């Protein structure tokens, strides 16, 4: 397990996602209100590229006629069959015990902290004055 610098934080604005490759693995990185999260770019159902999915909210209904919508942008809808995953945990909303997209720890780090190491930055040169997205793989 190592900490990989995958992006400059400024490259991934709020609400957006990006697919990066770390140690041969495709990982989808998300900016959720300034917090960063990372999921394997592979749906556990049939292998679709999750990073191309639609960001949606949570629609719930206590009973017919009563509807709520919350957590806008925090769920990911698979671009193929529409399975929904919680971006924070990778858990499937409908079958959390059976289907889970592997989640990686992701964080925002300052260049100043990073240069003290240890970290891996194969393709992202780190400068002290910038901020970066770091994923643990």
């Amino acid at each position, binding site marked *: 397990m190592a900490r990989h610098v995958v992006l400059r934080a400024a490259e991934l604005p709020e609400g957006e996602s990006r697919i990066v490759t770390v140690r041969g693995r495709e990982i989808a990185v998300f900016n959720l209100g300034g917090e960063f999260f990372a999921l394997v770019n592979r749906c556990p159902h049939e292998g679709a*590229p999750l990073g191309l999915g639609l960001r949606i909210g949570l629609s719930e209904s206590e009973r017919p006629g009563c509807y709520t919508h919350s957590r806008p942008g925090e769920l990911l809808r698979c671009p*193929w069959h529409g399975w929904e995953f919680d971006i924070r945990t990778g858990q499937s909303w409908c079958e959390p015990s059976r289907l889970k997209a592997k989640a990686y720890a992701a964080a925002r780090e300052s260049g100043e902290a990073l240069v003290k190491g240890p970290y891996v930055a194969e393709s992202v040169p780190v400068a002290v004055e910038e901020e970066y997205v770091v994923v643990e793989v």
Partner: protein
Amino acid sequence: MTVDVDPRVALPADAKLRLVDCDIHPIVRSTADLRPYLDPCWHDYFDQFGNFLVSPYTEAHPYPKPTPALSRLDTWPPSGGPPGSDLDFMRAQHLDPHDIELGVLQVLWPTAARQRNIGYAAALCRAVNDWQAEEWLAREPRLRGSIMVSQEDAGSAAAEIARCARRGGYAQVMVMPRNLEPMGRRRYWPIFQAAQEHDITLGCHVGGLNGYAVTGGAGHCSFYAEEKDSNGFAMEAMLTSMIFEGVFEAFPRLRMVAIEAGLGWVPALGWRLDDLWQRFRAELPAVKRPPSETLRERLWYTTQPADEPEDPQHLRDLFDWIGWDRVCFASDYPHWDSDDPRHALPVQMSQAERRAIFRDNAMAVYRLG
């Protein structure tokens, strides 16, 4: 039969299974692409009137759809145009990575088959069939076409089947379950006659809009989820009509594939129809054999959208009941519910079983060998 091979385990290169995909959807970039293929007699009609269908809507579907163009979000070609409109992108995203040996095209749009103006319907069907031949079949030897026919005008449909059979390159005559009358009625028999005469398989792809509620008389439904579920029972109703009207006795060499309707209902339909046939022989004297035998010997069924029982072993039970020689893989690329051949049927199969479902059964029913 030995069951020892996990489908996810890669086979050695020399034993690698090439696939036949029974359901790939190509589409025009816009309907203007068809104009050069349309008989000039109909150009003015095409320009002035365009689509006018047997159902109330011409450019929209009467039920909601879950994704733009009903497609996977990753299938929009970078060249522009809707999913399924770019052969090079289809090769790169689907045909090459899945090592597809042969794929059967199913054209859904424009719905030439369901134009209200039957003269235009026949002309537009010819244009769609020639467009397939020129833009797809001539450019990609792995693809086979579907003969689009005007289902409500069986005479012109039969003539078009004969024309396309002479031309070659088509794997099937394509029909849909929802027509103005149940498909077993005599008015549709010239289609079956022509398919049998030219030894071309009849492929029934789910869908068709006839203006009636898809629920089969229960009224118009609210949700896409309901409309999608109706595909199975629309296919059941169509097969019931064809079997009880005696189509399979009248055309003893007719072969038929039920496409995209699922599999779980097939054995139950056989049980129920046998029961009815035994009790009401006076009503159905033309039916000589138990319906379950017809379903078992004259029909083939495609896998997508794959049934996903909680216990995947139940898929094996289903294949046992339907017949391992009757089930054919289909992807439905590029639609949202398309199946990836590597993951869609997560059940252990022997190499022989996999070969049958992913290749040999389709080769047999479509005479592709």
